[in-house]
């Protein structure tokens, strides 16, 4: 395999948290339970899943904001799993994040110039004049034009979409190679979402940035990613090219999830929507078998209850973790 093209690689990563239950008892929450995945340079991987599936935790692991309980995290060919603070700082120049809520992730008492300039100050880059130029360039990149007019504005004077662009400009100013975007458009008006996503895509093409796009919205993932990974309960259950995942889903969870997504159609009101039966299990009390087994509609076999399925290439470049599908293939 051409390892040179890898930006991010996770190998058998596990992330367990200790959670207090009652006064004396602690329980282990298996937020991520054995994930291996990689993202190629300049590509976007969409990580799709519901609340509690571990997608945000996985994102934080790629930035080494969390240290995995088990497994390794690689950035290019650099093993960042055990990096100390000094080395982490220089790594973090190369990897940035854009968060969900532009209302709370940027400081309301700083103006746009200060917000976008701050990363330069932290990493001690450039003199005053150079910085001004860089901030102007970053704002122009996110199409906040004319940039100078935005310098003195405060976050409350901006719309949601503009605020998120400030967040993008701030992530962009260090010229990162990798950007983690965690639900970047879920707080933005539906009518502006495509605008922000298109902007990120064009910046990705311009600068060759690698993106991890975390979202609960599989429909936007379809249009703005090169691969989609579906997460369920701390594990990736299916991964492949968007058109395959959407049109020929393999894993029973992906199939049910896609059926549950609403489409604007006046005949919807006369029929029941597809659903995933039951609720998300509690990640602290999981049984041995497949995580989706309790909610799965398919006829189950012994393996489903006793063993964890692993990702298998069912069709070219299209992997799924399901015992039943493995059988279909062979």
């Amino acid at each position, binding site marked *: 395999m051409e390892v040179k093209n890898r930006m991010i690689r996770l190998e058998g990563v596990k992330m367990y948290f200790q959670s207090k239950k009652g006064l004396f008892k602690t329980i282990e929450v298996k937020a991520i339970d054995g994930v291996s995945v990689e993202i190629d340079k300049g590509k976007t991987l969409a990580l799709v899943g*519901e*609340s509690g599936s571990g997608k945000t935790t996985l994102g934080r692991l790629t930035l080494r904001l969390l240290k995995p309980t088990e497994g390794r995290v690689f950035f290019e060919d650099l093993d960042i799993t055990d990096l100390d603070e000094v080395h982490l700082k220089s790594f973090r120049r190369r990897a940035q994040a854009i968060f969900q809520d532009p209302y709370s992730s940027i400081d309301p008492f700083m103006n746009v110039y200060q917000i976008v300039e701050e990363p330069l100050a932290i990493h001690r880059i450039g003199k005053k004049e150079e910085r001004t130029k860089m901030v102007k360039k970053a704002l122009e990149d996110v199409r906040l034009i004319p940039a100078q007019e935005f310098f003195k504005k405060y976050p409350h004077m901006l*719309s*949601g*979409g*503009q605020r998120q662009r400030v967040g993008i400009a701030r992530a962009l100013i260090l010229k990162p190679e990798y950007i983690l975007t965690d639900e970047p458009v879920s707080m933005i*008006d*539906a*009518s*502006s*979402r*495509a*605008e922000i996503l*298109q902007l990120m895509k064009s910046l990705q093409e311009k600068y060759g940035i690698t993106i991890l796009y975390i979202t*609960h*919205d*599989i*429909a*936007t993932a*379809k*249009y703005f990613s090169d691969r989609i990974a579906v997460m369920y309960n701390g594990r990736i259950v299916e991964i492949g090219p968007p058109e395959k995942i*959407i049109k020929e889903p393999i894993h029973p969870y992906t199939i*049910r*999830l*896609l*059926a*549950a*997504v*609403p*489409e*604007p*159609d*006046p005949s*919807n*009101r006369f029929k*029941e*929507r*597809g*659903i*995933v039966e039951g*609720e*998300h299990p509690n990640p602290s009390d999981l049984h041995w078998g497949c995580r989706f087994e309790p909610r799965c509609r398919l006829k189950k076999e012994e393996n489903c209850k006793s063993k964890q399925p692993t990702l298998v290439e069912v069709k070219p470049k299209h992997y799924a973790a399901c015992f039943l599908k493995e059988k279909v293939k062979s």
Partner: protein
Amino acid sequence: MIFQGSMNSLNPVLKVGHQIAEPLLLENTVNKKEAYKKAEDLLEMVGLSKEIFNRYAHELSGGMKQRVMIASALIQNPKLVILDEPTSALDVSIQAQIMNLLKRFKQELDISMIFITHDIALSSDLCDKLAVLYAGEIIEKGTAEQMYETPKHPYTQLLLASMPRLKQDVPPTFIPGAPPDLTSPPTGCRFYPRCPYRFDPCDKRSPPAFKIEKGHLSRCWLNDGGKK
């Protein structure tokens, strides 16, 4: 009767069963036993077990809380239920369960509903008629068929085009700009600064509601031609 969509409308220190029954107890028309019995029945109707009656809000998941909220909205046999973003805090798989439940009640109990949402795709799950609100004005309204299949107002059309589609391969578009500041709305049509089809009268005169066909109204000068 108003039904707030928030998951935080439940009192954390009261048993949920009691909260469902509370309106009946306040009314004082039935005794406690009957009220509690009805609350239990409603819990089953919304797809929860009777045991939930003695639980507290923090013991329930988001989807379960929303089911409890629906039960408490139904306890006085309302004719009208107003739902304000009832599923916006829920995951799509749970959202689908709740929508199916509402759909069933709409048919079986013959309840009228006002469903308030920002999600035009979701609204098609429930609504017979749809009204689109922009900057404080209803800019278009009509039956579900008229609105989803032949929308007339540019804003409705663009809003539908901005939804990413799973089944068709049409990349979503966007509406440039942001809604106007309502302290000083634009003169004329409120949507004209963002409208790609604006022409002569749009910035000067506010369009009245033009009738497209029976039941279908649109506030856009492009639709001038039919009767007012």
